[in-house]
């Protein structure tokens, strides 16, 4: 029997742990992806707030006529923010995966994307139904809740602590459902997609970039 030194034994154990992680989880998400997503969301929310306040300042008649145009403007702003946020997050993820030597399109990243998309696409379709039925006030809480569920669902295939971000998003979505008044949706939305992403990103950055 080969006698291993303590250092070798420890190294063996940490190698085992690293192989288990690398082979089953996509761990190349970086703190910067979270921070950049959060910043895009806050910029988007500010633009939306500005557009809403401009429409609100117009006199009564025009305001009612233009609610429909405002809605489309907000939908376009949200879509652009979403696309920008996803692109920037992918950029930082590719950068991180090169550093970690993990392929960007292996089995674990495919599993991550599939598990993220199932609740996300369901939520997206549900929100379109809400808009179609003119239940606009329900859109913000629904996006938060479905996004939280998507994160928890995906946490098995990436950094485990992303599920805590998911729990926070769900709680925020439910709170938004309780305190539902005009303008609250945008506020909760900025906290959920903006502030929480930035906090989580900063936390990740310091946790994994120390060494």
């Amino acid at each position, binding site marked *: *029997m*080969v006698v291993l030194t*303590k250092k070798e*034994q*420890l190294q*063996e*154990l940490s*190698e*085992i742990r690293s*192989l*288990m992680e*690398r*082979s*089953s989880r996509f761990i190349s998400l970086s703190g910067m992806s979270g921070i950049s997503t959060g910043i895009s969301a806050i910029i988007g929310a500010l633009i939306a707030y500005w557009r809403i306040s401009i429409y609100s300042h117009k006199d009564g008649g025009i305001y009612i006529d233009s609610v429909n145009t405002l809605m489309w403007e907000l939908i376009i702003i949200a879509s652009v923010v979403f696309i920008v946020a996803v692109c920037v997050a992918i950029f930082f993820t590719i950068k991180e995966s090169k550093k970690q030597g993990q*392929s960007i399109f*292996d*089995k674990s990243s495919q599993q991550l994307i599939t598990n993220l998309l199932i609740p996300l696409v369901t939520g997206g379709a549900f929100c379109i139904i809400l808009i179609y039925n003119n239940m606009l006030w329900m859109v913000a809480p629904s996006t938060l809740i479905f996004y939280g569920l998507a994160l928890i669902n995906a946490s098995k295939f990436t950094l485990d602590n992303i599920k805590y971000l998911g729990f926070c998003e769900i709680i925020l979505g439910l709170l938004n459902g309780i305190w539902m008044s005009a303008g609250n949706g945008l506020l909760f939305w900025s906290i959920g997609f903006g502030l929480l992403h930035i906090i989580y990103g900063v936390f990740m950055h310091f946790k994994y970039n120390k060494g």
Partner: protein
Amino acid sequence: MIENLNKVFESRVRLGIMSILMVNEWVEFKTLKELLKVTDGNLASHLGALEKKHLIEINKEFVGKKPRTTYKTTLEGKVLFNKHLEALEALIKKGE
């Protein structure tokens, strides 16, 4: 405790193979090779040794015209590997 340290796992490659198969079901030869960074021949001989002891299962199939070989641990393999890990941890704790 120390008797649980299994001689079969006294190789980095075998330890690596078992680690990957513990958390994934049916892993391809190619994936194992990439993760462990070893040569085909080296990997094949270690896989063969593990299969001989009934610690892993091999599945050969055709995807279109290409043969594909995948591997998974047997229940016995999982039990023995877990015991091996526990023994390793115990050894380290004792040394502290």
